[in-house]
């Protein structure tokens, strides 16, 4: 026997059991007893609904507890994993921003060093070639020799500094390990939240079934706050290679623009 058949059977039994007394009390004009009997039958009929609602409430409660977002808990704020995830993502933003800025600081500090070497090497090469062609007076050569010595000393010093900068740039990338770990944990939490919400969605569906409620899904969708407007911007496309309506690279953009006459 299925669950529904058992319920049906129980209801029938209740009606049959009370039918005789109901008839008797009606014949006697005993309205109080008659309505009591009817109420009992009603209660038995509603029992499965009550059971279902109680079960769903319990499940909802446990799903909320799983999410640790229950409002009545005084520690909800501290316990909330969502809140924690928010902080973690802020940490990622801070770390990536710092790494980017540190790297750019080092690149900006390195650029003048490289520029000096390039500029001075060019100038010295030109003069050195004049010397090898024996086009340089002795006095000028003495000056050239001094410049070459200065250049060598400064190159020695600057290349030390440069290699320090390069090392620091390398170290600045260590953010990737830390932020990677944090993002992994947040991703796990999102998977968990997704599961809980799916469970709640299933419960809501059962409530609707039990209570015989029907929703207009179109209206619900319209009321949803997650409306996309491409004018507002969507951010980077994560699956650019799979989506049809997304360009995959700059060549694609250029092709599209030139087809529009740009």
């Amino acid at each position, binding site marked *: 026997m299925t669950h529904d058949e058992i319920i049906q059977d129980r209801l029938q039994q209740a009606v049959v059991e009370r039918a005789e007394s109901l008839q008797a009390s009606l014949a006697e004009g005993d309205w109080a007893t008659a309505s009591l009997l009817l109420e009992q039958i009603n209660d038995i009929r509603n029992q499965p609904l009550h059971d279902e609602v109680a079960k769903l409430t319990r499940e909802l409660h446990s799903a909320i507890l799983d999410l640790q977002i229950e409002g009545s808990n005084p520690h909800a704020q501290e316990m909330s994993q969502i809140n924690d995830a928010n902080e973690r993502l802020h940490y990622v933003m801070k770390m990536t*921003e710092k790494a*980017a*800025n540190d790297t*750019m600081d080092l*690149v*900006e500090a390195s650029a003048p060093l490289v520029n000096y070497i390039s500029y001075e090497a060019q100038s010295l090469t030109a003069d050195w070639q004049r010397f090898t062609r024996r086009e340089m007076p002795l006095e000028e050569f003495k000056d050239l020799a001094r410049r070459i010595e200065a250049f060598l000393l400064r190159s020695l010093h600057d290349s030390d500094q440069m290699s320090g900068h390069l090392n620091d740039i390398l170290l600045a990338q260590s953010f990737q390990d830390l932020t990677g770990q944090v993002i992994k944990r947040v991703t796990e939490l999102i998977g968990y939240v997704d599961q809980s919400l799916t469970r709640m969605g299933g419960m809501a569906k059962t409530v609707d079934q039990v209570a015989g409620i029907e929703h207009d899904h179109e209206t619900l969708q319209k009321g949803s706050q997650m409306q996309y407007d*491409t*004018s*507002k*911007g*969507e*951010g*980077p*496309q994560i699956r*650019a290679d799979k989506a049809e*309506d*997304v*360009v995959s*690279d*700059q060549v694609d*953009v250029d092709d*599209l*623009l030139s087809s*529009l006459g*740009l």
Partner: protein
Amino acid sequence: MNKNMKILIVDDFSTMRRIIKNLLRDLGFTNTEEADDGSTALPMLQSGNFDFLVTDWNMPQMTGIDLLRAVRADDRLKHLPVLMVTAEAKRDQIIEAAQAGVNGYVVKPFTAHALQDKIEKIFERVNG
């Protein structure tokens, strides 16, 4: 191309502004200013004699596409060359930007070469 032209860089992320600023400096453009949103960029453009606008799309207050439309709607600014440097990569969005009058479109992540190429093309067309 006038290397001294005044360029406004608009992006809500300071790191991206800095990257673009550095790349522009490498290309010889040193006269740059920065804004972190369309809403702060527009008054700067209206009072600042800028020759070129480089803007992101997705920004919190006023988006780059709205900034572009505001620029094209302003009689004194409507001929300002505008380059979009953005992560927005939907075909519809690129078409929307083209229709709004963008002069060039670079998708992030981009290369120094792509930026240079677009800037050169824009000014070839503007001056030609």
